[in-house]
């Protein structure tokens, strides 16, 4: 029954997102597409951090990798749909290639190593001018052609991103509730006990790292066709940090926390940067404002809501529900479900 209710919630969320895609005005539509793409990446980061105990500060590079894979292929005559499919594959392949040595390291080392990878990736894009367009950028990327329909307006990409986010959420929830997902959740609780239960800990960490990279790559691929133009400046290191902040604020390990966290952070940053760009503000105000949002949100999440927003609200909610119906006092606690 819980499963049916989860399906209803996810289905309702998809319908809401499709409705928003149809109804939102042109002026906010681009922000909405960005929000959906960010949520896709953050959901993957959240699962990686919450269920494999790893912090990746290189998720922006996987996003960029997917974007450039799709962009380079489709500017060289490959059908755009194949370009889009190649985006997650390329990002996952990059993650697998570097994950094997990286996953021998752990904790902060993995964070630093992925951060370094992001920086190296950016400079590679800048250097390989022939292929990537260098710092000037990759131009003339065609629109995504799905044979029956060509996606050429921001609204089309809002629909596409809504569906992509929906698919990612469904896939992740299916995984988390099953054998490989239990293995991941187990090893984030005790690696020793997981290993002696027959779980190859290193391989599972590599798998979830690769999976989260593939998800980031998919979002990057959509971004490419949406924007039609790519430059290394679109993928600053701050992007990687932003995903981690969003996952932490929303609630690590929870799929819906990834969505809530990205929405909260992105909308706050956007609102503040609007204020900061009002006339009379100093020219550095927008940058300072956005950095301040990340810092303040992260610090307050760590201090006041270490579990994240969604698990916190979920607990309040179930406590209230229990208080109202004492006969259900020993019902399974919130968190018993992998859903959330």
């Amino acid at each position, binding site marked *: 029954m819980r499963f049916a209710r989860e399906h209803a919630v996810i289905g309702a969320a998809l319908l809401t997102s499709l409705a928003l895609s149809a109804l939102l005005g042109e002026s906010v539509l681009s922000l909405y597409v960005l929000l959906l793409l960010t949520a896709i990446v953050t959901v993957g980061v959240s699962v990686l951090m919450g269920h494999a105990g790893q912090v990746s500060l290189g998720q922006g590079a996987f996003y960029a990798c997917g974007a450039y894979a799709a962009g380079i292929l489709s500017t060289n005559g490959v059908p755009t749909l194949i370009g889009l499919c190649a985006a997650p594959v390329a990002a996952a392949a990059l993650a697998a290639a570097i994950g094997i040595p990286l996953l021998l390291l752990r904790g902060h080392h993995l964070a630093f190593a992925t951060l370094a990878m992001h920086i190296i990736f950016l400079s590679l894009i800048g250097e390989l001018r022939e292929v990537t367009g260098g710092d000037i950028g990759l131009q003339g990327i065609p629109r995504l052609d799905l044979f029956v329909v060509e996606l050429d307006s921001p609204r089309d990409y809002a629909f596409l991103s809504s569906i992509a986010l929906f698919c990612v959420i469904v896939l992740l929830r*299916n*995984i988390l509730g099953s*054998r*490989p997902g239990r*293995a991941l959740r187990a090893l984030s609780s005790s690696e*020793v*006990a997981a290993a002696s239960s*027959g*779980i190859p800990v290193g391989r599972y960490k590599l798998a979830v790292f690769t999976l989260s990279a593939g998800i980031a790559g998919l979002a990057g691929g959509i971004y490419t066709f949406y924007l039609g133009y790519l430059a290394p400046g679109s993928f600053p290191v701050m992007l990687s940090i932003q995903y981690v902040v969003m996952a932490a604020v929303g609630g690590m390990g929870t799929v819906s926390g990834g969505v809530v966290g990205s929405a909260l952070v992105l909308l706050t940053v956007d609102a503040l940067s609007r204020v900061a760009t009002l006339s009379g503000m100093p020219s550095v105000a927008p940058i300072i404002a956005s950095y301040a949002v990340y810092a303040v949100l992260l610090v307050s999440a760590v201090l006041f809501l270490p579990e994240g927003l969604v698990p916190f609200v979920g607990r309040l909610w179930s406590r209230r529900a229990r208080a109202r119906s004492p006969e259900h006092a020993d019902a399974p606690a919130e968190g018993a479900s992998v859903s959330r």
Partner: protein
Amino acid sequence: MLGVEGLSRRFGGIYAVREVRLQVEQGELRGVLGPNGAGKSTLFHLIAGQLSPDSGSVRLRGEAIDRLGPARRAEAGIAIVYQNDRIFRGMTLRENVMVGAHSRASHGFFAAALRTPRFRKEERELAATADAVLDEVGLGGQADQLADSLPLGQQRSLQLARALAAAPSVLLLDEPASGLRTGERQRFAATLQKLRSRGVAILWIEHDVRLVTSLADRITVLDLGSVLAEGTPSEIRAHPGVIAAYLGGPEEALD
């Protein structure tokens, strides 16, 4: 079933386990006794593959498994219940035990993401296995409860259930009865006997000497990392070295 040859492991120059030799047969319940720091837990970690030895070898069904990591040893049939609690937090009892049965299914990320028929079938079987094992250790009614909320004694039972779910041929129990109440102890003793009759080779570290001598087929006594004595419970009771070094004098030895 399980053979240990000349197994040694040092920490900072001091032997925690020294030249240990051990042979446990199918269906044998082997008690392991020894004072704190004798090297009992270290011996188990070496057998389960959590630690690697400085020298020596571990054999399962006659084959050396020294090159296998802990996960491969679990697949090969070795299960362990740790001395300190290592339950999986944030997961229900059923999920905890299903993790124990990990090697009994094979579907991976793709099958799970797409909910293939094989995935559904395996998940049903895993859940049924978990529920049966939970019943066996007396946690039957609580399968949907979060493991975090269990009192200590039941956490031990949960660890036992998780180990049993793998249908192991060798079971390592590191003080599994500590923290159990009287009723739970009796159930635990009954479970041990049932497992023995199923042919599981059991190594059982236990501080309650009376309980071990009444149940075990044979007993190994460790002291300062080495085997001090090995034999049937009555031999161990009569062993002068054991009485002197471990049991602390004849009056504390068991009647």
